[in-house]
Structure formats: C-alpha cells, structure tokens
C-alpha cells in the first residue's frame, strides 16, 4: 500500500464521517426539547417575535430541508451563525480550536517524550526499583482525576511558589495571528516575550492533561518492549555482540514503537475530550468553554460546527497514525 493510497482512502472516509456525524448531531439536536428561538428572543418575548426569530434562523422549515441547506452551506465552508455569539461559527472555531489543539499536542508531547524513555527503562530493569517506581507512577497517572491534579498544581506552582501562571493563555497582547497557536506564532514572528509567556501558561495545563497519558504511554511502551526483547532477532543482536544500548534503541525500540503508535494515536482522541475539563480548571480559552456554553444555549450551529470539525480532526489524527505506522513498519508498506 503506498502512502498516497492511504491518504486517498482516509480522505474519502472523511467525507462519509462528516456526513454521518453531521446527520446524527443534527437529528439529536432537533429531538431534544427546547426552543432556541424562544431562548434567543427571551422569556417574555411575544409569540410574533419568537415566530420571526424562528423564520430568521430558518427553523420554520421542514427538518429535511433544514438539513440539506446545512449541508449545502457546509460544502461551501459555511458553518452558519452562532445563535449565542451572533458571529460566524467558523470564526469562533478559528479563535478557540487552536487553543485546544495546542494544549492537547503539548500534553501528548510531554507524555511521549517522558513516557517512552520511562517505558524503555522500566522494561530493561524489569522488576527492579526503577521499574517499580515507574509502574507506580503510571498507575497513579492513569487513576488521578485531571481536575484534582490541576487544582493541586495551581495551588502549588501558582498559589504557593508563584512560578507559573494559573490561568489564561498569555499575558499581554497575543502574537500576530498566523496559525492561532500562540507558541508557534510567537516563535515564527520572533516575538520572544510572547513565546516565554505562552509557554509558561501552557506548562501547568499540559502537565495536568499529559499526566494521565504519561501513564498510558509508559505502560504501553513497557509491555511492547518486554515482548520485543523476547524475540529471536534480539537474541541474534545479542549473540552478535552488539552493545546493550544498540540492542535496546536500534533493534528493540524500533519494533516496540510499531504497536504503540496506534495506541498513542487513539489516546489523542481521548486527549481532546480530557482537554475540556482541564480548560475549565485553568480558564483556558479553548473549545471546552465554548462547547459547554453552546450546549446550554442549544446553539445548534455552534454544536454542529464543533462536531464536524472535531470529527475531521479525529480522522486526520488517524491518518497521521497510519502514515507513521507505515513509516515504521516495512511489512505494512509492502502489503497490497
């Protein structure tokens, strides 16, 4: 299977996913009781006002017509106007989505950069002290509620020590908008004070969110390594007298990463959900707040927009996983 083939397949899949997800969200959001037109117009508005509002929002048409209209707009990149903010949903998403992605990526990087070495260490020192400590750490990580850890970290690093900020994304004006990721934008424009501030703000939320995944990554790498270290080819490497580092890093880890990529990719999906909680604790202006408010206000266009974009992100993450997988595993590359 060639890389191009995989990309093509995933993109075709994306169309179906977006269609399916939007259909389901559309159906559900119109089945739950509540009248957005009345909510917009206010409790005391007269029936005429509400009816007018309904017509403006297009809510008076049959459901199928509404859905088709939505799809038509969607195909043109128009996600509609948010009932709540009265701004195009797309603009809202462009504003909030990068914040969430930035947080999730930072958390994932933290989990991988620390988790892979810990997992390897734990596997080669199986049942020794390092392994015990690492295993305890990973169980703790997996079972610690994010909001609790977040509050603890805020109390410690912000409240007591005062070395990290406890809320928001940045102090002072944000860097020039290029990608919406503050750290990246600041680095690209050479705005060092903004970069420092963005990184400092990112630190605690990323640590909070990443801690759970650190446990998952460590555990996954450890068990994959233990399995691979039993393989005959590791025996060959040992019997040809290679150094321990070479055996572990070049021969074993490479093969242990192959099954781990899928695991870690799946975890990224969870990470997006986990971000919502973390954002609340750190007042991080991301999707989390936006979605919660939209749901409370029955803001259909916003909810639908979010769902469509989130599922697109999910498919793209899976594509990235597949490509990494193919890059690592020559046997997959050859098949088909």
């Amino acid at each position, binding site marked *: 299977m060639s890389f191009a083939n995989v990309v093509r397949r995933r993109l075709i899949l994306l169309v179906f996913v977006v269609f399916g997800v939007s259909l389901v969200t559309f159906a559900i959001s119109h089945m739950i009781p509540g009248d957005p037109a009345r909510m917009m117009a206010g409790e005391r508005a007269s029936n005429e006002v509400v009816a007018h509002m309904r017509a403006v929002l297009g809510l008076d048409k049959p459901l199928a017509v509404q859905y088709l209209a939505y799809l038509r707009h969607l195909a043109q990149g128009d996600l509609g106007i948010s009932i709540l903010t009265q701004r195009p949903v797309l603009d809202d998403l462009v504003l909030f989505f990068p914040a969430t992605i930035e947080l999730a990526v930072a958390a994932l990087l933290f989990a991988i950069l620390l988790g892979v070495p810990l997992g390897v260490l734990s596997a080669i020192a199986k049942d020794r002290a390092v392994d015990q400590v690492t295993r305890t750490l990973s169980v703790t990580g997996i079972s610690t509620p994010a909001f609790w850890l977040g509050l603890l970290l805020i109390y410690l690093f912000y409240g007591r020590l005062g070395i990290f900020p406890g809320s928001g994304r940045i102090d002072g004006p944000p860097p020039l908008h290029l990608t919406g990721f503050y750290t990246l934008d600041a680095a690209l424009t050479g705005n060092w004070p903004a970069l420092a501030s963005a990184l400092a703000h990112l630190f605690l939320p990323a640590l909070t969110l990443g801690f759970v995944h650190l446990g998952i990554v460590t555990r996954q790498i450890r068990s994959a390594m233990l399995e691979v270290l039993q393989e005959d080819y590791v025996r060959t490497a040992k019997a040809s007298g290679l*150094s321990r580092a*070479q055996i572990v890093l070049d021969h074993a880890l490479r093969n242990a990463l192959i099954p781990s990529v899928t695991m870690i990719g799946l975890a990224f999906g969870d990470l997006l959900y986990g971000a919502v909680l973390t954002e609340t604790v750190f007042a991080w202006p991301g999707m989390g707040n936006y979605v919660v408010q939209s749901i409370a206000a029955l803001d259909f266009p916003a909810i639908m927009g979010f769902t469509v974009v989130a599922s697109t992100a999910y498919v793209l993450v899976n594509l990235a996983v597949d490509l990494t997988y193919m890059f690592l595993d020559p046997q997959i590359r050859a098949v088909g």
Partner: protein
Amino acid sequence: MSGAATDLALEVDGLIISYRRRGQTLRVVSDVSLEIRRGEAYGLVGESGCGKTTVAMAIMRYLPENAVVEAGRIVFAQSEDLLRASPAKLRALRGDRMAMVYQDPGSALNPSLTVGRQVAEVYEYHRGLSRRDAREAAQKMLRQVQISDPDRVVRRYPHELSGGQQQRIMFAMALATDPDLLVLDEPTTGLDATVEAEVLDLVAQLRAEFKTAILFISHNLGIVARLCERVGVLYAGRLIEEGPAQELFADPRHPYTLALLRCVPRLGMRKDSHRLDPIPGSLPPLGTAAINACVYAPRCPLARERCRAEPPPPYAVAAQRSTRCFFHEEVPAIAPSDRGAAQAVEANQPVLLEIEHLVKTYRSTGTAATVVADVSFAVRRGEVLGLVGESGSGKSSLAKCIVGLIEPTAGRIALDGATLSHAAAGRDPALRRELQMVFQNPDTALNPSHTVRHILGGAVRLLSGLREKAKVERRIAHLAASVRLRPQHLDLRPGALSGGLKQRVAIARAFAGAPRLVLCDEPTSALDVSVQAAILNLLAELQASQSVAYLFISHDLGVVRYLADRIAVMYLGEIVDIGPAASVFNPPHHPYTEALLSAMPAISEGERRARIKLHGTIPSPSNPPSGCRFHTRCPRYLGDICRDQVPPWQRDAAGHLYHCHIAPSDLARLQPAAGKQRTVEPRGAESKERS
C-alpha cells in the same frame, strides 16, 4: 590442517545444566564433555528435547534466565573459560570470535531494519568501520555467501527475502568477523530440500574458505554425516557416543545410535521388504532421566542389572571413539526386531482415483496464480502414490482439491469411475467417507478440548454410520488398537499426548469409516525419526490390511522412496515426472527429479549422489516461464527449444513418463545412478586436503 590435540577451538568439560521450573530443578544436560579442533566440524545429533540447543546456548553464554549451570567449564581457544568471563569480555567475543546461526532465519532477523544494515552493524561495532565502509564490507560479504544481486538485496527487509536468502544473511552476519567458532543450530530445518542442500553446500564452502571450527547441531543424521568430521550423539542430556562421522554411522557402538540409524529409511529399503525399527518407549520426561544408572536402560534391548545400578563411564572403543555403554561389544550383534514387513499390494488393481486436467487458479485483485496447472493422473486401489516437489509447487492445493477443501477451477475428479462434484458439500456422503485426509501438524488438526475418545467417537458416528453406543465403543477400541494407542490414552486430551501419539489419533480418525483413499500431507515431517518410523510402519500396515490407497505428500524423498509404489514429481503446478517408484528414482528421469534427488542428505557415502544445483528460486505461479516451465532453472537446459516449446511427454521402458525435450536414451547417458559417481562435494575436497 594440523589437527593436533593441543590445537583446540573449543573445549567443553563436564557441563551440567538444569532448568528451574515451578520450584523444581530439572536437569537437562548431564556431564557433557567435547572438544572441537580448529577448522573442524563437529556434529551434535539427537532427538527433539535431548538438550542440543541448551548446549549451544551455554557455549554462547546465552541461556534462558531460568537455566542454571551447575558445573563444568567451557574453554574457548584454550584461554577463556566462558562460564567465568565478564559481560564486557563476552560481548567482545560474541559476534567477533564466536558466532551463531539459528534455526528459523525468519524470526532471527529484525523485521524493521534492512538486511544490509543488520550485516553492516556487525562491522561497525566489532571492526569500528564507518557507516560507509561497513556497508561496503557487508556487500562484499553478501557476495561471499552467494546471494544473487547483493547490491539490491542490501536494501531489502527480511520479509522480502526467501528462507534460503534469509539464512544466507544470517551466515553473512555470523561470518562478518571471520570467527574462530561457528555454532549452527539446525540451520536448515524448515527449509525446502533443495534450499537446504544449497545452504549446506555454502557451509561446506565457507569452511574451506574461512577455516572456522563448527559446532553443527541437527536431528538429521544424513546432514551431519555429510558435513561433519566428528559426531557426538546426545540422549536425554548425555553424550552417549562420539567418534568420526563415517565410522560411527557405519559401525555404531551404542544401542541408541544403532536404533536411531535403524529408524531411518535407507537406500534399498522398501515397505514390502524392510520393516522400520522404531525405538520402543519414549524419551524420559524432562528432569526424570536417571542419574545413577544408564539413561537408556528403560528402552535398551541389552539392559541388565548393572545398567540400572550405575551410570556407564565412557569406554574408548577405537581411536577417537568412545561410548557410554557397559556392553558396547554386543551392540553390533543386536538383531533388528523383525516383525515381518507389510505385504505388497498386488499389481494391476483397477483405478480408484482419476484426475483429469485439474486446474486451480487463485484470483486476487488484478492477478491470477495458477497453482495447479492441468494435472492428470490416476491412483489404483491399494496403491501409494508419492507426491514430491519444492514448497510452492502446488502439492497441498492439489490434495485439497481432491478432498473438496477447496474448489478446483476446472477439470474432473472421479472416484471408482463416478465424477465427484467440485464442492465437498455437493458430494455424496458415502463418497466423502471414502476420502480422508491426515495433516502435517496434528496439533492444529485435533480439537484440544475434546478427549481422544470423543474425537474418535465423533468420527465413527459420522464416517461409519454406527449409532448404537456399544458398537461405537467397540469400533473406537478397535481403531485405537490398530494405530497402537493404549486404552488409557482414550481418556486424555491431545495436549497430554506426544506428537507421535497425536498423529496416531489423527490417523485413527481418518480410518474411522472404511476409507478407500487417504491423502497424507507431510504426516511425519513434524516428528522425530524414531516416531516417524513407527508412523510409517503403521501406514504400511493399514494399507496392506485394509487395502487403502494413499496420496502421500512429503518433501522427504527417503520416506517417499520407502512407502510409495508410484511417485509423481510436481514443479510449478505441473506434474513433470511420474512412474513406478524405482524408475523415478533411477535414471533416466526428469532433470528436476535429478536435482531433487541430488539434494537428499544420505548417511553413507554409497547413497550419495552428485550435487546438481538449481539456479534461483521457484518462479511465481502468477507468471510462469514460457515453454518448459523449468527452463529458468534447469541444469540441462538445451537452449531456445526449452524456452519456446512446451516439451512432450517421454516414456521410458519401465513405463515411466516425464515432461522434457531430452529423449530417455540421451538422458540415460547424461545421468549417473546413485553412488556410481564420485560426489562433487567439498567434503571430498576436504579429505583430500587432509591426506
């Protein structure tokens, strides 16, 4: 080579190794001592589980974690005691001065590194070469192990190479540093006979080039006889006999060695003239071998009081020869336990199975692979048709078409003149009963959660139509007795049985009805020789007593020669050679048959043939060569005629047909019979060099 006793590459002295398992300490290697001189090839033979690999791993200092070396010394190059060497010292020795090649090259190579990288790594690490120099050195070494197209192969991943090529890569890695000692643990088991022969040729050539001492581990006596100067026979962790290979095999002085040799079907042995002589009983389970007695006593025909009271010391019976048997002088006189050979089936029986123009094509997106290409033959009642050929020649697909496990694409299959429908579901149940199959691996063929009684009972009800409980029970007992299962085995599950017993259950199941034709697909290739002998005897007896016919598929030509009445040779989906067993084995025969026979490992010089090498590997069935399908590899290739024209069937005087442009009279002149010609193999060269 000097060969002085002081010039030792390896000395193992009084080695005792145990495995710890569930709190018990089980002894696997007991007091093994052996010496290998520089440049010498020493063969260690023995049945599965006797401790061969354990010895090899101990030498490489690479035992599993639960292994305990209780005593002994392993002295390398007359200086290091490996058992006391530091880890750093060991790392420097391993892969540099001593190297190992394993049984299964597929799993011994790292799947995610190119093979070039894996060979180059050894140079980088042990020779300190730069990445570039190492890559060049690796390419040069690949040329030395005779990989075709080494410049392309270096960039390949292991799964893109054939088994033979993978094993060559392993050899390249092992030889990269020109080691003093090479440990080969069953390096050809699992490879096709022709590939095996090539790898063995390679070992012999590399020996001449590199002058490396070799510890060659194998369960195959023929291979060891061909390749090694000296041999040690291991039984239940003890080295029971040792000596120069030819002498030891020609004149064994331990009852076990003798018994092992009598299990192997040799040249001139046929089911109707020679019964094979399996060893009664079985290996003692791990850790139960007697320490204060002769380990072989429970199975030995010469055993007496003394044998059960003290362990026999090594006796020097001739120059360089020793045996651990009190009564070694009596060994040559042990008579074969002749219980009479199976009766020959009368000739000229009516035809039972008829295959006409059978074709099987596997289709997948865009490609079509024709693995059985227009095959026709017949099997007579009570006849054994042996089917041989390299893996990928279509033997198993053909058998599966006949029993209806897969549907042929075209052609006719008839049993007793009645055409069988292609799908098993459309066949008359009575006909289905008459066709049974026995598979290579009894582990996967028997349901592990059922008792033997349950398995056989199900088959009896299904295949013989018996319903009444008492009758079914009687039939089960009868079946079990006919395959020599004991009544107590009936209540065990397959997991509790040895490989040989499991295969007996599988055979009993196939005979539950009254089959007329049993298709045996490599039924003994997963078994040890002594177990194989018993199964072959059993198959011969059942054939004679129930006049059942077999289509017997095997890559072991010795086994086929012993059991088959007629032989068909398949190449790339076609039958290229078919006829009475003796005439297929003797010239004139198809050039492919000739090459297959030359690859047969034989125990004695007299049985050996000149090695005929085939070029390359078997082509893909999705794109078979034009003209004669064998022309890309044929050592007797004539030129354009072979490439362009499909060869005709040629018939010789013995009623033997083959598919080739060369006429029988011409072929007869080209092809010498077995043993009539000096073998052109490096062992010959080696002994010349020594004299």
